[in-house]
């Protein structure tokens, strides 16, 4: 699992990267009430806008951790956006992406580095 400074996570499995937002980010946002996901086939750039998440407290852009093409979205979030709260780093995933370059993930933080980064946010 890799993380960005913008609190997205990315996990590579069988050539496809699953992406969501971190447990820390979800804890800060509180109750998620709406998630807007991209269309399948959309090409995204690294750090480009990819999705939107609205909680009872805030609306936030979600960025693509790396470049690629959206191959699947988590359709369950339309009816049950709370899944993001219940399971932020598993069932509450946002999209699956076919990466332009899987090696781009290596530039992102690993779990230990991200935890230290979050600690530093105070």
């Amino acid at each position, binding site marked *: 699992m890799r993380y960005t400074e913008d609190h997205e996570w990315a996990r590579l499995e069988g050539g496809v990267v699953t992406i969501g937002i971190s447990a820390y980010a979800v804890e800060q946002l509180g109750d998620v009430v709406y998630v807007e996901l991209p269309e399948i086939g959309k090409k995204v750039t690294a750090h480009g806008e990819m999705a939107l998440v609205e909680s009872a*407290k805030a609306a936030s852009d979600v960025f693509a951790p790396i470049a690629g093409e959206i191959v699947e979205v988590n359709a369950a979030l339309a009816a049950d956006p709370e899944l993001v709260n219940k399971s932020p780093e598993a069932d509450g995933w946002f999209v699956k992406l076919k990466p332009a370059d899987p090696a781009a993930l290596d530039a992102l933080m690993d779990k230990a580095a991200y935890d230290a980064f979050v600690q530093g946010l105070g």
Partner: protein
Amino acid sequence: MRILRMCFGTALESGERMSGNDTLQSLPLDALWRGRGARFAPFAGYDMPVQFEGVIAEHNWTRTHAGLFDVSHMGPCFFALPKGHALVGDAAHQKIASLIERLVPADIQGLKAGQVRYTTLLNPEGGVLDDLMIARPAEPGAAGDLYIVVNAGGKLDDWALINKAVGGEANLVRADDRVLLALQGPDAAAVAAAVIDAKLADMKFMRVARYEAFGRLTITRSGYTGEDGYEILVRAEHAPALVEALLADARVKPIGLGARDSLRLEAGLCLYGHDLDPTISPIEADLAWTIQKRRRDAADFPGAQRILSEWKNGPTRKRVAIRPRERAPARENVEIMKDGRKIGIVTSGGFSPTLNAPISMGYVEAQFATPGTPVELLVRGQARPADIVALPFVPHRYVR
């Protein structure tokens, strides 16, 4: 992830907001709420508890049990004739009421002892400078006093305006060093009767009285959630004991400012600075009911010409409730469209836990204000279908 719009702060927000924090004021009960696990964020110059267990859970608890809110950021004050005045009873009340009526369109002279009215502070153009509660104390000894509660954001300006308007004819005494609590929800009456005074169960909506408990309390049966409940002014030194006694009742939970916002939005109540501002008249804001007949006949309040013209002929724009048909919330500043033309703007919007759907309030051209009118909301550049509906979104449950 990047926060686009905040309702209330989260730690993910950029450092800009944090840099302004050095001037933030703390509530007298700051430590108590932190001990109860509150998450804090700045609001109207105060570091406020915005969330305890979660906005939606707190919202639902208030609708089904009783929620305790700390609203000490607001501006309670006592407005009184100078000491040693010779007037008594109704004559004293009429004198003090006539002074505040220079700034508000409500019939304050007509208040009976112990009665409370919601009204607006107006500028000379009939625009709303703030919305507020004015109460005539129940106790005969307090004749010639008014108990007034204004909003946090504009309290210093409001008080300066009131002082200026009355010259030296009355004194305004701030009470914002005290703690102002709101106890709201269907269990509020039973809890207040058990913890404070049995007589509170029989108090009527929009009434005020003093209670000799926890020091001396000034309590109104009122609130800003759409639920039955009370707003309680308590001296800071007695506040911790009162709060602990209320929270010791299993029906009561502490509730943050986040849920207060979703509750008042469901109840169709205006948030100053969002749904009300100095360009908006009480008629446009659908607050015509706050201007009683005596004042309309006398036409003696600021902006009376505009306000009475709008009363008679109808305003050009009107505050409305809006239900998006899809799940995407339409928040403040979203444009409201009809047939490709902008007809208005959203002033408050979010998610309604009670309806499990997004809800918004805003202003539209009067011809489109009828409930049932389909409109479109321009959310992030995309026109989304919505309908004008009747206010409030969730029925009020006041005890009349």
